[in-house]
Structures are given as structure tokens and as C-alpha cells.
């Protein structure tokens, strides 16, 4: 259908909007105006800045932790560079996924594409950042496994802080696609958590990065999908 075409059913007597019953109207007006006070929310820019601030705060803590535990300067520097570049990606994802343009959220298909591309890209980045590789049976038990487990827990905690800040900052703003936005919030949180752990963690082994740092992104994405409707829908 093109907008230039004449409307084929324009001459029909389309139903007129209907007013609700007086009793219902009185009830609604009574409930919504009782003790009414100003309730100013944050602007989209403030919400976005708040999310990036929390992400930066978590990364700074991880940097301080790395310095305190005498992590190599090169490792710290690489971790910070990664965090800065991915911080820009996080900002872009938050802008596309949450901030409305002219009052309306961006295209759903673009946000779906971002939700697919972001974790794939991040896992690709982790693979690129891996300097060493041990077979899975050597990785899956002993000191390597326990290090991966503790790293994964810390990444999960950091990711939950970042993802939680995104969900809380944009709470109640998306009545249309809250699950999709929740998934994006989870991915942003997961990336934030994994990068923060990447600054403080000395391991560059591939299995360690994929499981302890990378899987967190997917896990938090799933969690965001689960809680998105409850938190992001008004």
C-alpha cells in the first residue's frame, strides 16, 4: 500500500471514538488527581550518562584492584584501552536501544540486529585478545578451573551492577518492547562486567576468557530478557 494511493475504504462510516462511562471516568480522575504532586523524571541524556558513569566506576575499581595486586603495566593498559573502546560501543548501544528520537524508540529491527551482533562481536574480541590456549580437559579442573570460576563470579557481580543500573535508569520507559530492551541492558551489563574483570585479571587464556568473561554477557542478556518486562514496562 502506498500513501499516494486513494484510501479504498475512505467513504465508510468508521466507528467514532467512544467515551468511557461516567462512573469509570470519575474513578480514574479521582485516583489520578488525589494528592497529585510534581514527578519529574530524568532526561534521556541524564539516564544515558548515569549508566556510563556506573560502568566507568566499576572499571575504575577494577583498575585500582589491578594496581593493588601488581598486575603488569602492559596488561592494565590493554585492559583500559579495551574498556574505553567498548565504553563507546556501550554508549552507542544504549543510545540505539533506549533513547527515543522525537519521542519514539528507534526501529525494532535495528535493535534486534544490535542484540545479535553485540555478543558475537564481544566474543570475537575476546578470542582476539586471547594470547594462549590450553586444551579443555586441562582447563576444566584444578587451579585454572577455580580461577575461572572466581573470575566468572566477580564478572557476574560487576555485570549485574552495570546492567542493573541500566534497568533502573530506564525503568518504566518502554511499554512496547521491554524484553528486547531488557536483553540489551543485560548485554551492556555483561560487557561492562567482563571488561572490568579483564582489567584486573592477568589471564589471557582462551577458555578462561570465553567462559569466565564471555559467558557472563550471554547469561546477563538472558536475565535481562527475563526481567525486562517487569522493570522496563510502565
Amino acid at each position: 500500500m502506498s500513501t499516494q494511493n486513494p484510501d479504498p475504504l475512505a467513504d465508510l462510516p468508521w466507528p467514532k471514538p467512544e467515551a468511557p462511562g461516567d462512573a469509570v471516568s470519575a474513578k480514574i480522575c479521582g485516583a489520578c488527581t488525589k494528592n497529585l504532586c510534581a514527578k519529574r523524571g530524568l532526561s534521556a541524556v541524564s539516564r544515558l550518562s548515569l549508566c556510563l558513569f556506573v560502568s566507568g566506576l566499576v572499571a575504575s575499581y577494577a583498575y585500582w584492584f589491578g594496581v593493588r595486586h601488581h598486575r603488569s603495566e602492559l596488561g592494565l593498559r590493554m585492559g583500559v584501552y579495551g574498556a574505553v573502546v567498548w565504553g563507546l560501543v556501550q554508549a552507542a548501544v544504549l543510545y540505539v536501544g533506549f533513547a527515543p528520537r522525537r519521542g519514539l524508540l528507534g526501529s525494532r529491527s535495528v535493535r534486534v540486529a544490535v542484540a545479535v551482533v553485540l555478543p558475537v562481536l564481544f566474543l570475537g574480541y575476546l578470542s582476539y585478545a586471547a594470547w594462549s590456549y590450553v586444551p579443555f580437559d586441562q582447563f576444566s579442573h584444578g587451579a585454572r578451573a577455580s580461577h575461572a570460576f572466581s573470575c566468572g563470579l566477580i564478572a557476574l557481580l560487576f555485570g549485574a551492577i552495570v546492567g542493573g543500573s541500566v534497568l533502573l535508569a530506564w525503568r518504566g520507559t518502554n511499554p512496547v518492547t521491554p524484553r528486547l530492551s531488557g536483553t540489551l541492558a543485560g548485554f551492556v551489563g555483561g560487557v561492562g562486567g567482563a571488561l572490568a574483570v579483564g582489567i584486573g585479571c592477568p589471564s589471557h587464556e582462551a577458555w578462561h576468557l570465553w567462559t569466565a568473561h564471555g559467558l557472563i554477557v550471554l547469561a546477563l542478556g538472558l536475565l535481562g530478557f527475563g526481567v525486562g518486562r517487569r522493570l522496563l514496562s510502565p
Partner: protein
Amino acid sequence: MERYIDGEAEAFELLYRRVSPNLMGYLLRLTRNRERAEDLLQITFSKVHRARGSFLRGAPVLPWILAIARRSFLDERRSAQVRTEDLSPDGSLPEQQNDDRPLPAELSDALDVALGRLPENYREAIVLTKITGLSVAEAASVLGATETAVKLRVHRGYTQLRKELEQYSRTS
């Protein structure tokens, strides 16, 4: 909306008078039941009231409220699906009745019935663009679909409506 957010009660009443007929019409066509539509209207406005702080200033109000109404409808329907159903006296589940009655003689009534027989996604797209008066972009934002998808739904809905109404023109 902005004056309402700032705490002016009169502004809410003005907003309610402007928005509620469109919202009620939309909910009536979604639920096809006046009582349910009025319940959902109350739920929608209570959500709007709670979430007024998260409304982004300058955004169009009606699509935002319609999107909340639609989400409330979907949530209500989801919870109704898991609710227990009363069995009929012979112990079986009640069957859905197909609405294959002839269309009413009055054209406006016939149109209303024909609209009610459309698949839900076609009906929603037509109600939002034709009756509520939203632009295709606004309807797409309410439905969480692309503009192309909304245009397609409206077109298919029109085609189906035309077929239904042919029966009306033959009988009248």
C-alpha cells in the same frame, strides 16, 4: 502532559478528556467487551499515573498511552490464559463460538462487526491508523513493528474488510 507531570490536577482532567475516547475505542476493539475495556482503561491510567515521571518530555502522548494500554491488554490476556476455565456440565472445555452470523443491516454496525472478525494484528493496525488517527510511524511505535509491516497489515485488513462488506452490499 507536562503540566500534569508538574502536579496540576486540571491538566490531568484535560488530558483524560482528550485521550480517553480514543483509548476506550482502541480497547473496545481489542477486547470486544465494554466491561473489560473499562477495566483495562483504569489499569492503563493507573500505570500512566505511576510512570508519569518516566515520560520523556516532548514525546507524543497518545502513542505512549496507547502502548501502555496495549501492554496492559497483553498482560491481562496472558494471565487469563493460565486461569482455570469452567467446565461445561458434560465435563468438557467450552468451545469458542465462531462468529458467522450475517452482517447487520446498518452499514456502520456491519463495519463494526466486520472489523471485529478481522485477525487481531490487522484489526489493531486499522483501528490505530483509521479510527484513532495515528500516523503509520506512530502506529508502528505502538505495535513495536516496522512501518512497512503496519502498512501491510492495514492493506491486508482492508482487503479482508472489503470481502466481508461485499456480503453486506449483496444483502442490502
